[in-house]
């Protein structure tokens, strides 16, 4: 393939609109042609700028509040004739960009946490949202939440197929915001068998041993924590959501703001009302998300069509649940739902078995060296980190006005010496975070926003910051294959500037 032929395809390449064979040929050419790589980078920057400009412009204007009042009398005079309605499912198309970004952001943060740096219960995001005032007022008492989770592996959109049978679990969660202790136990509602356990009793973390292809948990690791309780556990800043659950606190806004923005921003979000299990009124936001993906096995391009219902308490706007549907071939099949069915604050002196001793159907196994269970990250110096691994990257200097908090598992597993979190944060909570320990090479999905630093680091920005969701994250690939994540609440240009300052610790 010549440079000219390649360059005529670069735009469609960035837009993910090439056939697999065209794509492969472009990639092959790119690997050996600096000129076309440069062209690609320029085109990618241009696309990003065009997007940002359009988003800023559109975000600055809203339809007038009285638009319907103006329109209603005009259309009264032209009532349409009734028309026979044909069957068939309407395919709803436009993307809600913000929601997609949020999903990407949270999924990515979710990836960090599942990389066992911060074992926060999967349900925390919902719990936190439901207690959104917590950040401003110290809570008295112990929060108790019950969540019903339905999961149907068969209906998960390809290529994300997972084994297992459809199941409903009930997750019982307790949290003491004063101490940071938490406990979460899930049981299959049909068999009453335990399907997940995790918790923190102030001294130990509890992590379920999930065996491949087995839903039932019989072993729980008890891993002593030497680093104390990190502030982020107390503040509940970290989020875990492999499920794309969105909530206001995770995006630095109140739940009501999240609701209003989601409702207002998307061309294709609609809101209805429903009654919740406990009789309370909830608002339901229905939204459609399409996502391009590629079947790794065949290289076939897949367009995932999913829709999602998000349930907000009509009074508090707390996020009460979510339902995800796989919309394929004109059918909409529920594959995941999560519904908070009980929420209460128990007296502060309520006795909760944070140490899991009440669980008679699992075996608690001591994991003194932290080789099996999760570890809360503890403080570490750059020198100590450098002794562990040569694959860690930090900024060459702490940016003016920022402070660095560097944490890592106190006892790194032999295979994972490079897990760490470098959190640069200023007084306004603007941050730049580096997360190391991505394990082996992972597929970099989004080629759209590639930025290459002077030192040859390839920074793949995933998702774009928008007016609504000013977050950015990226996978960084070093010339030697090392991968790590960066995330920031900073504009793209500033992120790129900081990426230029990334250096290997020595």
């Amino acid at each position: 393939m010549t440079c000219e032929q390649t360059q005529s395809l670069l735009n469609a390449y960035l837009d993910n609109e090439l056939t697999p064979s065209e794509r492969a040929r472009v990639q092959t050419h790119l690997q050996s042609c600096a000129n076309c790589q440069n062209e690609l980078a320029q085109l990618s920057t241009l696309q990003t700028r065009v997007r940002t400009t359009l988003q800023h412009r559109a975000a600055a204007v809203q339809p007038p509040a009285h638009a319907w009042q103006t329109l209603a009398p005009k259309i009264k005079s032209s009532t349409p004739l009734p028309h026979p309605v044909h069957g068939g499912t309407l395919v709803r198309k436009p993307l809600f960009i913000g929601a997609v970004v949020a999903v990407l952001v949270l999924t990515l943060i979710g990836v960090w946490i599942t990389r066992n740096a911060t074992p926060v219960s999967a349900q925390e995001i919902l719990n936190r949202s439901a207690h959104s005032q917590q950040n401003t007022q110290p809570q008295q008492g112990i929060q108790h939440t019950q969540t019903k989770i339905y999961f149907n592996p068969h209906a998960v959109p390809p290529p994300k197929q997972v084994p297992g049978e459809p199941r409903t679990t009930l997750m019982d969660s307790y949290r003491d915001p004063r101490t940071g202790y938490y406990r979460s136990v899930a049981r299959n509602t049909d068999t009453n068998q335990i399907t997940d356990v995790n918790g923190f009793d102030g001294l130990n973390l509890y992590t379920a041993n999930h065996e491949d292809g087995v839903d039932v948990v019989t072993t729980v690791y008890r891993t002593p924590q030497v680093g104390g309780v990190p502030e982020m556990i107390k503040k509940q800043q970290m989020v875990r959501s492999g499920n794309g659950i969105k909530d206001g606190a995770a995006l630095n806004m109140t739940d009501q703001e999240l609701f209003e923005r989601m409702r207002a921003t998307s061309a294709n979000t609609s809101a209805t009302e429903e009654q919740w299990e406990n009789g309370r009124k909830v608002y339901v936001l229905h939204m459609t998300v399409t996502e391009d993906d590629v079947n790794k096995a065949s290289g076939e391009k897949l367009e995932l069509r999913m829709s999602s219902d998000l349930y907000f308490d009509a009074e508090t706007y707390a996020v009460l649940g979510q339902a995800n549907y796989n919309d394929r071939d004109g059918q909409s099949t529920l594959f995941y739902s999560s519904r908070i069915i009980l929420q209460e604050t128990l007296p502060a002196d309520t006795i909760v078995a944070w140490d899991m001793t009440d669980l008679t159907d699992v075996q608690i196994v001591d994991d003194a060296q932290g080789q099996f269970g999760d570890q809360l990250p503890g403080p570490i110096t750059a020198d100590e980190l450098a002794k562990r691994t040569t694959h860690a990257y930090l900024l060459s200097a702490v940016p003016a006005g920022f402070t660095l908090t560097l944490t890592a598992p106190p006892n790194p597993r032999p295979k994972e010496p490079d897990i760490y979190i470098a959190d640069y944060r200023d007084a306004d909570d603007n941050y730049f975070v580096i997360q190391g320990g991505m394990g082996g090479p992972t597929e970099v999905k989004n080629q759209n926003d590639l930025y290459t630093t002077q030192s040859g680091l390839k920074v793949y920005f995933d998702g774009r910051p928008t007016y609504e969701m000013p977050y950015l994250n990226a996978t960084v690939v070093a010339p030697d294959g090392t991968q790590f994540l960066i995330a920031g609440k900073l504009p793209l240009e500033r992120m790129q500037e900081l990426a230029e300052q990334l250096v290997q610790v020595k």
Partner: protein
Amino acid sequence: MTPIQRARQGDPDAFAVLFEQYKNLVFKTAYLMLGTTADAEDALQQVFIRVHRSLPEYDPRKGAFTTWLYRVTLNHCLNQRRQWRFHVPLDALIKTPAAPASSIDIAEEESIRQAIRELSDKQRAVVILRYYWELSYSEISDILNIPLGTVKSRLDLALKTLRRALSDNADLPNSIQVEVYP
């Protein structure tokens, strides 16, 4: 029954729901196409009057409602622009202040804005559908009723034009750099 199905049968409440649901799609597309809120507001009214009148003609089997709605909106905008060409010089269009941008270079955004405004109407339409609404080439092809290859070549051309316009503007002396970081 969906609001669209009910609206097609003449249910006025359902039409109000449709309006709420899709007013942003119409308004924002029109604003990005036409450049002023006044024109976007007018487009919002005209497009929904048209939609209301033509709803019985809309056949869900032939495509998504949104495809049809984008088409009606863009047709309205293209007609508007055709009329203007004879009346109003483009430079007289009012500038609406952008949202408080977190970008460090306001001047650059302004030059992109201007470059987009100077695209041909057809090119601007594909740019908005692709880079604002993030629609796929095949969706754009359905909306504009043009072949896939034309979507691709039109986008290529639009980006080339934008790139040329931006490199021409790069040396303007009045470009202002705003540093918003400590």
